[in-house]
């Protein structure tokens, strides 16, 4: 199974929608392969809720990159803090 196939399977399993999945499959190319490989290895250890959170987090960050909306960014950071504190 290729890296992208693994990623797509994982995202489908977690219930991430098609549009978001496409975004992940495009953007994953921005990572050097061994980092992407490690990243997907980590994702495979996470639960569905974690992956759903990360999908939202990616969307938020892209939105911030496009709009420079500081309020959006602050909200995303607060959510990251909660995510990190959860077991």
């Amino acid at each position: 199974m290729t890296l992208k196939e693994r990623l797509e399977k994982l995202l489908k399993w977690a219930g991430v929608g098609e549009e978001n999945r496409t975004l992940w499959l495009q953007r994953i190319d921005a990572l050097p392969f061994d980092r992407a490989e490690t990243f997907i290895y980590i994702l495979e250890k996470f639960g569905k809720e974690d992956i759903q959170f990360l999908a939202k987090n990616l969307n938020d960050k892209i939105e911030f990159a496009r709009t420079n909306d500081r309020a959006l960014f602050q909200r995303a950071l607060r959510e990251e803090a909660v995510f990190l504190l959860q077991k």
Partner: protein
Amino acid sequence: MERLHSEQSEEIKNEILDMRPEAKALRAIEEESAELEALTEKKPAPEGKEAHEWQRNRKWKKAALHALTFMAFSGVGIETRAQNQILPQKDGTALIETTGENDPKKVEANGKKAEKLRLLIEDKKFKERVARLIGTYGETINFLRVEIVENEWDLEELKTATGNRRNYLLTKLAGSYDYYWNKKEIVKHAEKFTEMPGVSGFELAGHSNQKVEAILKEYPADLLTNIDEVRYVDAVENAVAPPAPESGEKKESVVYGVAGRAYNVGIQSVLWHGRGYEHSNVLTIYKASGEKPHTESQLRDLLAHEILHYYDWETSPRLTTGERFEMLDEQTEYLDNPKRRKSHYTDELVPEEYKKNHWDEKAMRLRQAKELWAEEFEDFSGGFTTARYETMKRNIMNGKLEDFSGVKFSDKWLNNMQIGDYVKATNLVRDNQSGRPSMHGVRR
């Protein structure tokens, strides 16, 4: 993200151009993330058995968040470098206004660089090489190609572009040329980073941090500037595979104990050419999986191996894009050579890990190529001490190293990376074959 206007000072523009494109935006993110970090530190970590799992889980979560940040900002930064304004629209889309360089002299200079870039990426040999490597490694080398694909789009558009849009494209392409193809600029940038890596934790391994620092000082300084920290972790780390579905087992099976990792805590380090940023490239040595701790000799081997992982075709901050593909191409040829030396790790353990995990064979090949590169250096140049030099000399003299292609390969590519004062491995071979004494083992 920065919004740049043409009237902004030259200094600010240069600062942006000087860094990797996404760097500015990410620096802001990281500053705010430090506050977030402080917030999460307030919660006490669990103790006992749960502690390791908790720490690992947090480390993974942080790494995942870093990866997403990088993914989110890829592409945007390229626009930033070309001095754009990104204007949010009411319908949620973004309008990109471009303001390329309009000074006629600079436009002309950018045009020359864009033309050089075009010739390089349209070079027949280069294209054949890229196609060959895609055939071998598939999507696993996409990262090396991302910028080229973007350049190809821009060059295509440049054929018909006029006015401000043309100037913008030229600015962007000239930036790409300097960043990815201009050897002089690339090395100049890499040489800005001169700090030695920090060292921590080795007292737990029965060694001292001072001893490890002394070992590192035996290396050419240029070979360490892509590493932020060398850290010992007093825990056994294993490469694992899930149980086979039909086996009914619950536990994951250990494929092998991981002795060290060229670990990248923050994936953002690729934005920074590795250095200049806290905790980006962390070379980690793990507790030995057997009963005894690492001996000094094992430690030296591990360090040599892991250090070279920061200097391959993907990670080295000192190579042009053309050189990255060339190096991988040559390493692939060596990997496929039936006469090359075999290694238990590269040729047995790595394939076992990929097979058990049902991972992609092309990814496995890339991993093997990378491990082989680190092993070539570990075995042939093996650290930079006189003792290792003597070992290598003995191995050459008694015929243990019949295959010198790995030596020559290490030599050529360390030279191409302009790593100063390294062991000239080919000289070493030549000297020993002629029986003449050599002083190449002396380090600074």
